[in-house]
């Protein structure tokens, strides 16, 4: 370990890699040690974790918080559901159209939102998400309205819950790796610069609108993957996928785990999904509980779990190094 603690350094790389290996090991071991309920719940957490990561890519690095990503997540899920239930399309077609629908909507939403920022961006994306939800509820021929779309089936190789769990784990790991590559690339650096000062970034030679749009579409890409996974995991798509609460919950996961970190949103997803699935058996008022956690986190613990731990760690390291 080097002697100088960089102010921004989270934990030295080796510890990070160690934790990552531990997490992957735990992920691999889970179906061997836990029951079917825990495996199914963990699968959901992995999917929502990926969804939260997609929002975090834009919010945590680009400074643009989308409140409407459930719209993109939902459109991708509906894309799969529509091909599966209303046409004869096989898995190739389902995946293709799920992805295409998600990306197309990301592009349209991105073009609409790219010239706005801050609160305006928030409002615009919120409206976008709500519009998808409204369409899901009313456009019966395509979405089946309140009845939703049935007839989505998992491919044969992931029929069992534990199999689907491993698929989700693998997809999340790959996507997290990709997101890490993006964040560390020149593009990622520019994206972070965008969050700090768009005038300065433009004056440095970057197209602000272009970077916002690309960031939005990339984020939509990962949200779409999460939506597709969701559709197969659930084998049913209904308007609630695109609900505002889906977005709000993902944002809560990010805040809980730590904004602008790679592990935070996933940790947050596990906490929320497990708490929800355990609690909702006991209390009916889950949204109230969620709303209260939301308020408390925003008021008192905005760095989230990873942010808090990082701080404590840095303090510890600094104290050890001071003579």
């Amino acid at each position, binding site marked *: 370990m080097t002697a100088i603690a*960089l*102010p*921004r350094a989270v934990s030295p790389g080796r510890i990070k890699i160690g934790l990552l290996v531990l997490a992957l090991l735990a992920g691999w071991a889970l179906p061997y040690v836990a029951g079917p309920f825990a495996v199914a719940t963990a699968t959901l957490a992995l999917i929502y974790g990926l969804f939260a990561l997609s929002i975090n890519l834009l919010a945590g690095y680009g400074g643009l918080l989308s409140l409407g990503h459930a719209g993109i997540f939902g459109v991708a899920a509906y894309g799969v559901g529509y091909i599966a239930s209303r046409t004869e399309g096989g898995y190739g077609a389902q995946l293709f159209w799920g992805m295409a629908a998600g990306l197309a909507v990301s592009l349209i939403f991105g073009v609409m939102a790219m010239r706005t920022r801050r609160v305006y961006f928030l409002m615009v994306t919120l409206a976008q998400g709500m519009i998808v939800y409204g369409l899901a509820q009313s456009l019966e021929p395509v979405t089946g309205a309140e009845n939703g779309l049935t007839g989505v089936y998992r491919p044969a190789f992931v029929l069992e819950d534990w199999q689907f769990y491993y698929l989700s784990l693998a997809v999340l790991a790959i996507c997290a790796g990709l997101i890490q*590559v*993006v964040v560390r*690339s*020149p*593009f990622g*650096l*520019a994206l*972070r*610069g965008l*969050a*700090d*000062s768009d*005038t*300065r*970034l*433009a*004056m*440095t*030679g*970057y*197209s*602000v609108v272009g970077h916002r749009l*690309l960031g939005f579409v990339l984020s939509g890409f990962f949200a779409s993957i999460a939506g597709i996974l969701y559709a197969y995991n659930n084998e049913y798509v209904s308007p609630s996928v695109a609900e505002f609460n889906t977005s709000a919950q993902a944002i809560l996961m990010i805040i809980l785990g730590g904004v602008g970190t790679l592990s935070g949103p996933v940790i947050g997803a596990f906490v929320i999904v497990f708490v929800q699935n355990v609690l909702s058996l006991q209390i009916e008022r889950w949204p109230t509980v969620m709303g209260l956690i939301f308020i408390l986190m925003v008021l008192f613990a905005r760095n989230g779990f990873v942010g808090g731990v990082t701080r404590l760690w840095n303090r510890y390291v600094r104290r050890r190094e001071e003579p």
Partner: protein
Amino acid sequence: MTVSPKDAVLELDAVTVRFGGLIAVDGISLTVEPGARWAVIGPNGAGKTTLFTTVAGERYPTSGRVRMFGRDVTRTPSHRRARRGLGRTYQVTNVFPRLTVVENVAVAAAAAAPGRLRFWWPGRPDGHADETLEQCGLASRRDHLAGELSHGEQRQLELAIALAARPRLLLLDEPAAGLSAAERVLIRDLVRALPEGMSVLLIEHDIDLALDLVDQVLCMDNGEPIATGTPAEIRANEHVQAVYLRTDGDGEAEH
């Protein structure tokens, strides 16, 4: 359109900027040759920053034309001008506070590298960035967050970001604003040491400092050009003296 080396770096033709009823810049014309050093002086509110904003493309002029590197860029967005070789610093510090110092500079250096959109780093990420930091005296602060730097260091970083992209035309808006005498010397030396081929426009309230660094001066008042010439001519110009007497000295009061 081809650009021959003899072409002026910047040509302003009767550039005017209005804010509602207020005319902030009123018919400024100016030709900047390659490698020329210009000072833009004038009392507070004379329109100097607004003129820079227009040259930078952050605001388009109400009327008049801007040509840069031999092309008409009157309505070209700022990032395109930057890519062609324009750099600027801001009067009010405008850095990336949540990036580290080296990242601040690297982001600018990466913009200048060929192929703007990259998902991987070409070679070592911050080679050129480190050079620029060295040049601007920030090497020891390399891994600190920009937001944690002192005001003086942030002004140095302000300059470093602009230089990292190796601009051909550099706009410096009061680079020494709010600095102590010692820090001003540092900035002065930095400006003096800029590569010879680089054209520089410098806004500076400290007349002595400004005139010491340049070979041409534009003096503005109320948006209008009241004099252009060499530092010696400007010092001798009665009109300029009158403006500066009226505003009582060098108008340092603002910061």
